[in-house]
């Protein structure tokens, strides 16, 4: 096993990896940009290295700088976490070139899976179903419209280099096809500098269901069951669960075998995730492979009892998997919520500021993964995810109850967060029934606002009590009687009958 590992990341995932290393008696090196100097991941690590300028390209994305520091401190391996350099084949290669172990698959596999068209072709060759579509290099309008008609409607036009819904169109009728292709290309060109698109059959009632795999360097591949990640807001997962409410024993076995076959087809090593789309009739299609640890790996850990990060370290250091597919068991139900510093009432814009108070819920089977603490400064430089909250229990209904309890006790003050929004989603009757698709948020929460009725009476009473307790007598301000022009005439909007 390694003696020293550099963690090329920040926030909750850096903390989680450092803890795993420390339990295994591996010395850890944190990296940080100026604004993260006092962050929990830096405090926790055995050593730390300053990357300087907080701009990601100058810090957490700066390959040369990170490799240089890793060499200086004598790190034998680098764990990239997720995001930043985790799926960058150049970084994996730079590690290898410097004699440092990259904790993940080979640069070749990362590069292959990063090209969505090539990835699908390769995986389809392993008899794993992919969505019918056209992924060719010919990009002239004639070819594309001809191929589109072959696929049938509705179909999806999607930018090859795309992400986040940019350069994407759903085409319902043949007449709209040419025009949609052209506008998707224009958008793709401006967003990604690349106007290449592909076409795919449009899936009705799609669910995003992914399978976790672990593959060692000796050629063994296992899967650790599914994660249902359909609850997404603008293609960003916010609530994940396992098992999926629609999963059957048979479908799980079929999809699990497909996931293992996909990983084997590309010579995958280390932890990875095969993302599938599942339609209303339980047909499933390979979407893409994430060649890294997922944010939501915690729910798999809760239901299987396996520590994925420790296995990443063991596999990277050359140890064989001792977990056997037949011995793995999915037990109970786990749910994860991602806690974002964002304002759900204001278009989910990131919210920055100082965390005045952080006091997280605890209890049996409540897991907090967090990279923040009281007095932490949430900066605008990085992803606004503050923390993850994972719960597990005997049943799905119990996990939802536990999650609602935990969210109701999740004190994180100083920025606005999506906690109220998460609670509403979890308590939605269709969510409770498990009737979810990737359109769930758009279907039920399109224009959602925190309490349309405004500030609740209880908050107002609490503020009045608090200010009575904390205002010194001499500071008390007398309100002058309102005149007819007073804004009070406009702003009294309390609704009775709370």
């Amino acid at each position, binding site marked *: 096993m390694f003696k020293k590992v550099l963690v090329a990341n920040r926030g909750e995932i850096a903390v989680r990896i450092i803890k795993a290393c420390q339990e295994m008696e591996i010395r850890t090196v944190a990296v940080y940009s100026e604004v993260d100097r006092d962050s929990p991941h830096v405090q926790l690590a055995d050593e730390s290295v300053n990357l300087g300028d907080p701009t990601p390209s100058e810090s957490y994305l700066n390959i040369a700088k990170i490799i240089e520091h890793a060499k200086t401190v004598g790190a034998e391996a680098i764990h990239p976490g997720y995001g930043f350099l985790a799926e960058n084949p150049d970084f994996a290669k730079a590690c290898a070139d410097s004699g440092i172990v990259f904790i993940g698959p080979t640069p070749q596999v990362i590069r292959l899976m990063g090209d969505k068209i090539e990835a699908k072709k390769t995986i389809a060759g392993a008899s794993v179903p992919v969505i019918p579509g056209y992924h060719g290099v010919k990009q002239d309008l004639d070819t594309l419209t001809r191929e589109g008609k072959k696929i049938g409607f509705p179909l999806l036009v999607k930018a090859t280099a795309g992400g986040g819904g940019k350069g994407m169109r759903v085409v319902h009728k043949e007449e709209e096809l040419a025009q949609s292709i052209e506008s998707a290309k224009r958008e793709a060109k401006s967003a990604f500098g690349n106007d290449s698109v592909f076409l795919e059959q449009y899936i009705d009632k799609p669910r995003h269901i992914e399978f976790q795999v672990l593959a060692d360097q000796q050629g063994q591949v296992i899967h650790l069951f599914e994660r249902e990640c359909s609850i997404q807001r603008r293609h960003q997962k916010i609530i994940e669960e396992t098992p999926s409410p629609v999963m059957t024993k048979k479908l799980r076995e079929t999809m699990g075998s497909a996931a293992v076959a996909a990983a084997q087809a590309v010579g995958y090593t280390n932890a990875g995730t095969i993302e599938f789309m599942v339609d209303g009739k339980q047909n499933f299609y390979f979407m893409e492979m994430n060649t890294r640890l997922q944010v939501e790996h915690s729910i798999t850990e809760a239901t299987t009892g396996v520590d994925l990060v420790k296995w990443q370290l063991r596999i990277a250091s050359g140890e064989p998997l001792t977990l056997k597919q037949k011995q793995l068991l999915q037990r109970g139900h786990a749910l994860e919520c991602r806690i974002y510093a964002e304002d759900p*009432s204001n278009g989910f814009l990131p919210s920055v*500021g*100082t965390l*005045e*108070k952080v*006091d997280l819920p605890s209890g049996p089977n409540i897991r907090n993964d967090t990279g923040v603490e009281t007095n932490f400064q949430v900066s605008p430089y990085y992803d606004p995810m503050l923390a993850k909250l994972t719960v597990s229990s005997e049943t799905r209904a119990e996990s939802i109850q536990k999650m*609602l309890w935990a*969210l*109701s*006790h*999740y*004190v*994180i*003050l*100083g920025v*606005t*967060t999506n*906690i*109220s929004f998460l*609670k509403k989603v979890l308590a939605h009757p269709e969510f409770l029934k498990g009737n979810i698709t990737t359109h769930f948020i758009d279907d039920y929460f399109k224009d959602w606002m*925190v*309490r349309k009725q*405004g*500030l*609740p*009476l*209880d*908050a*107002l*009473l*609490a*503020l*009045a*009590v*608090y*200010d*009575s*307790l904390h*205002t010194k*007598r*001499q*500071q*008390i*301000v*007398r*309100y*002058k009687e*309102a*005149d007819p*022009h*007073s*804004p*009070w005439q*406009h*702003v*009294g*909007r*309390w609704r*009775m009958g709370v």
Partner: protein
Amino acid sequence: MTMFINYEHNNHVYGVTAERRDNRFFITYDNNEYTVTATETKPGQLAMQVGDRTIKCVISEGEDSKFVFIDGDIFQVKRIELTGRKKSEVKSGTLNSPISGTVVSVKVKEGVAVKKDEVIMVIEAMKMEYLIRAPFDGVIKKIYFTEKDQIEIGKLTAEMDAREG
């Protein structure tokens, strides 16, 4: 002693009065009176009893606003002074904007004398005009905004000195 407090949340203002007797608080809002028994169990953590309801909440103070945590929901609230004036400073008034909006006109200049209720500034927000009026007779000491400026809720529009005598 009764306090008059104005809170702003999402561009709306809520005015309450509060009076404290030991751990009992008499709070009025929108013509209703509430009797609240409350203790601060830890700094910022309140346990309150209103009738047979128990309310637990956490309040933290940020730079220019408070955050109230109740049952998982968080509300960012500013305490603002509308046309109020400090009791101990009767000679000097302050005038704060009741709304976030655009200054559409400034009616007076620094140094001029104004009468109580004379219009000092007009602010437009959401297609409504709000008039900032002199709260008492006095002299305009300072004006902080000019036409077309954006102004935020609670911000001081101008300062006045009360007329001597």
